[in-house]
């Protein structure tokens, strides 16, 4: 080896010098915060600054078990995430299929068109939905103009508005893995199946779907995992009763200043997401 003096030992030291700041970075900004979350969940809220006293109390966890409000918030979040991810997949599949079918020269512009909304600001896009759906908004304006309704329909701050905003925000992330998988799909396979007499429906269920399934699962999880902790969209577009875990955690922290309970809620959300996350990481290795 042309490593000069020292050879292997020298290389180990050099690596150590490079690795040390990276370890420090990861331990400080990723490992320590999660560990502190664990410590905080056993503390007691107080009126001081910061508003807690350390200890080993199970009060926060007992509250999670005793008060169904929190279990329902977790459930509502999982339901919202699953609905969002399911709807995204339903819309994303034909989109990805269409995008994979166009002439290769068109793929890049279409991909840009898909990802550009992501670069235009998440809150500004939610602002557009507010402008469309509120009482004096464009949709109600049009409905009244066409004589369909006299009174404005309550469209904003509903389940529907929340879902529209969720799907709008997360749709590109469901399309991407499907698109990547479908352009890799070998057309010869489909032609062979068609030559052997498979009808389009059969073709879809026995060739395309099995090959696209890992990508569909990846797309579902890519939406489901962040959507489960979503706070901003339910807060800005959803009804007040849509108390998902992200919102409840936020309120416990910012309004009730109950840091231990907020920490316990964060841990509960993490515990629920461990399996989807592990599944996603395993898919990531394969896709």
């Amino acid at each position, binding site marked *: 080896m042309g490593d000069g003096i020292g050879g292997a030992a020298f290389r180990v030291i050099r690596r150590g010098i*490079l690795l040390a700041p990276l370890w420090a970075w990861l331990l400080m900004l990723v*490992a320590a915060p999660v560990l502190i979350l664990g410590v905080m969940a056993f503390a007691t809220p107080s009126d001081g600054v910061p508003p807690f006293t350390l200890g080993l109390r199970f009060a926060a966890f007992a509250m999670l078990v005793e008060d169904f409000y929190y279990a329902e918030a977790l459930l509502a979040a999982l339901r919202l995430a699953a609905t969002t991810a399911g709807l995204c997949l339903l819309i994303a599949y*034909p989109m990805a299929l269409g995008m994979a079918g166009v002439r290769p020269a068109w793929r890049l512009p279409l991909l840009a068109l898909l990802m550009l909304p992501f670069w235009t600001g998440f809150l500004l896009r939610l602002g557009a939905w507010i*402008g469309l759906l509120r009482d004096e908004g464009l949709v109600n304006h049009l409905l009244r103009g066409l004589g369909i309704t006299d009174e404005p329909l309550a469209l904003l701050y509903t389940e529907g508005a929340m879902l529209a905003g969720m799907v709008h925000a997360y749709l590109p992330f469901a399309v991407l893995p499907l698109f990547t998988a479908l352009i890799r799909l070998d057309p010869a396979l489909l032609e062979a199946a068609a030559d052997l007499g498979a009808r389009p429906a059969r073709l879809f269920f026995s060739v395309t779907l099995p090959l696209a399934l890992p990508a569909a699962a990846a797309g579902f999880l890519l939406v489901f995992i962040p959507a489960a902790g979503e706070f901003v969209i339910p807060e800005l577009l959803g009804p007040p009763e849509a108390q998902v875990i992200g919102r409840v955690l936020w309120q416990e922290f910012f309004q009730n200043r109950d*840091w231990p309970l907020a920490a316990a809620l964060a841990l509960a959300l993490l515990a629920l997401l461990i399996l989807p996350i592990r599944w996603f990481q395993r898919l990531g290795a394969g896709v």
Partner: protein
Amino acid sequence: MKPGGFVHAMMLAGFLFLWLPILLLVGFAFSADRIPFQWGGFSLRWFGALATNERLLEAAWLSLRIAAASATLAVLMGGGIAFALARFGPFRGRALFGALAGAPLVLPEVVIGLSLLLLFVALEGLIGWPAGRGAFTILLAHAGFGAAYVAVVVQARLAEAERSLEEAAIDLGASPFVAFRTITLPLIAPALIAGWLLAFTLSLDDVVIASFVSGPAGTTLPIALFSMLRLGLTPEVNALGALVVLGVGSMLALALWLLGRRQA
């Protein structure tokens, strides 16, 4: 396989769903009416109003500075993490190192925000640093999760890049540092730039993590926008949206045009 008419219609509908709200936001920014999304004749008055809205302008300037600084820090740390994972082979604790590097990608935003706030509070209590919370703690938090995204992008590029080139340079007598600077760095430069842009955008778009780790002095643009949108959409925010969409859109169109010209 040729997709049929149904698939094309669905694709069109999907793109329309994505784009219609955004296009309406741009169009109605030029309306004189004080109610957003109502047409009151062509006017630039809301762009004028935006230009004199001190609060939004200050927040935007703070956000841009935090985004640029945190993206730069994220590229340094994320690039280093990617290099260690792709080139160092097995080292002690590599599995933990990899897991920690990828964790911010899958942790919910509220969990990252809360846990980082608790970290900053604990550090202040133990060693008095960072004193108080504001722009600096937001910067650090954004660099923390930005680095995870940079690491993924750079690692993918390093996996593609021929390692034999670096080894050949070292065999020919180049020091590892020279080999890194003259071979590896040019190879991964596009990934570093893409990673920087990604970290920059994520920072500029984040409201949840910033809300947790900011103090009274840390009102970023998303935090300001969020508190405004809670009360509904204002024409100034509509105008801001149009500016961002037109700015980002024209930059992307330029990039695509340049790419197309190079291929032709």
